[in-house]
């Protein structure tokens, strides 16, 4: 009786211990290397830049706190910064759209090919990762140079699309591969011609994959600085370059921090908007409207 009692009360406790044991290391890691640095950046964005980089001490010689919103006033007061944020969003959107258009047919092709070929085709998709990122970018520079498109927005987009293509193909493939072929047969049997079958069955069922791919491409492109720096012209800098410049060249840490936070805010707002739009669409579908 006591034995059973002990065992039944012991199980949840040991389960809880396992839960802690499993979730603690990643939690500690995220707090130490993501949450704390982010908070440090929030604090830094309200401080004063040091004369030779870094930050001025938090307390002035007279003992008063040196915190102000001057950096934000400066940032939102100058159109050039918001214009670059806007341009970054545009480049990210165009890159994402091109990735989607190029990846969808390929992902569909891989998903429909015989099972024994699929792993090999997926391997081909990720094979470019075997070569260093910079080497692949320099390869593009060598190719685009003679074509007279280097150091232009076109070159930046080409590079961005190339580098991020696998991040769109893989989630799309993972989704499309799971589709039940009987659904397409059912649609055809019920009178749907080829394109109708795609738009009424395949496309709506693939939306989760489309959203994953969009997030995996859009967010990194928004912050990317290497490709615009190497392949773009002087007018092609994006928010990523701007942030890098503040920390490494201008030595204005508060401005760099503030720009980083603006970038984070843009991503959060867009992602939140997408989630809300998805909910609304589902509600409408349920309402039968």
């Amino acid at each position, binding site marked *: 009786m006591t034995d059973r009692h002990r065992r039944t009360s012991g199980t949840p406790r040991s389960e809880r211990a396992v839960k802690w044991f499993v979730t603690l290391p990643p939690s500690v890691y995220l707090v130490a290397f993501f949450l704390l640095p982010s908070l440090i950046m929030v604090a830094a964005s309200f401080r004063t830049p040091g004369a030779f980089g870094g930050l001025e001490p938090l307390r002035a010689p007279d003992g008063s706190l040196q915190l102000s919103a001057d950096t934000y006033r400066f940032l939102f007061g100058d159109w050039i910064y918001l214009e670059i944020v806007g341009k970054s969003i545009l480049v990210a959107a165009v890159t994402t759209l091109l990735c989607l258009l190029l990846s969808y047919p390929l992902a569909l092709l891989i998903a429909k090919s015989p099972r024994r070929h699929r792993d090999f085709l997926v391997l081909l998709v990720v094979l470019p990762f075997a070569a260093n990122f910079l080497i692949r970018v320099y390869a593009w520079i060598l190719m685009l140079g003679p074509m007279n498109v280097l150091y232009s927005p076109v070159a930046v987009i080409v590079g961005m699309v190339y580098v991020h293509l696998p991040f769109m193909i893989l989630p799309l493939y993972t989704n499309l591969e799971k589709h039940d072929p009987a659904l397409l047969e*059912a649609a055809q*049997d*019920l*009178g749907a011609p080829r394109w109708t079958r795609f738009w009424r*069955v395949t496309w709506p069922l693939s939306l989760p994959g489309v959203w994953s791919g969009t997030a995996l491409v859009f967010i990194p492109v928004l912050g990317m600085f290497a490709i615009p720096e190497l392949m773009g012209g002087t007018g092609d800098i994006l928010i990523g370059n701007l942030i890098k410049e503040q920390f490494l060249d201008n030595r204005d840490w508060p401005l760099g921090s503030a720009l980083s936070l603006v970038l984070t805010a843009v991503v959060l707002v867009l992602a939140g908007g997408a989630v809300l739009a998805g909910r609304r669409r589902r509600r409408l579908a349920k309402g*039968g409207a």
Partner: protein
Amino acid sequence: MALLEFRNVSKRFGSLLAVDNVSFAVDSGEFFTLLGPSGCGKTTLLRMLAGFDAPDAGDILLDDKSLAGVPPEKRPLHTVFQNYALFPHLTVEGNISFPLEMAGRPKDEIRRRVAGMLALVHLEEKEDAFPHELSGGQKQRVALARGLVNKPRVLLLDEPLGALDAKLREEMQIELIALQRNVGVTFIFVTHAQQEALALSHRIAVMRAGRIEQLDEPDRLYGFPQNRFVADFIGKINLLDVDVLESTPDRLSLAAKGLGTLTAPPVQGVQPGAHGCLALRPEQMRVVAENEDTGLPNHFPGVVRDLLYEGDVTLYRVVLRNGTALEAMIANSAPGRPRFFEVDDRVEIGWRPEAGRYLHD
């Protein structure tokens, strides 16, 4: 004029002859079943009719017009798929209206007809549910409604009850019969479950290895199987090896090795000396205690080897002198007396001569 006709249809997959020169016709309003074990070609016939596979030889005609070259989406036939294949991203209402939207029907007509179908399959309150929120039986009804809503000339059903549990299957069988009578659409039903075929169909084609072994009404199929395969496949049956002693227009005289002579109804064209088997349904067998009189001309002594009590009936396996086992199904009609015999009881087993059917090898 038949609504639908298969004319010498053959289909080969690699080295496998899946359908071998099959011909049959189906009338308008019929509940027609293709019955057979897996791999017999019944599903291939259905897929060729739906248009997903093309025959290698022969032709399929609907209203006397060939369907060759007509793609599935242009055929006035709809299919209820084995696992329903409901669209998971559409509600019940969205699923059922799909074929009507494809046919370009006006919105108010779609709404009216979907509501009618929902009432017919008793799913009015599930209109806004998604397929994953439905039970197996409800999914089944949605699939039926979706297949019927655009009034197809023929509804094809590919093992539609296979995924349901036994009790639900029986309920759906009754609903299916009522539904088919209500809508008057011709049903082509594919199944490997012989009981289901017998219960539902107007006519059944029993298939094996790409060929039709026998095409008949359920009671004819059960009562007068034409060969050993059909006899064995449909229902429970005893097959007793026999030689023909005498064949006259009004009876057959047969010899069972190690047992003696017995008589059976006449079969045309059977010559003395022929070898075959006598098919006997277990429910036609009479069993009495040893030394009691069965009152039947065909009877042999035996020993009860096994018995299977099934509640309403008990199945007795009686072993005869020559080692042949015969099964007898006896109704347990007397309350408080579930069994008439026990294992190892010595008994006499017999049957009326008309109950047997000689099958030529």
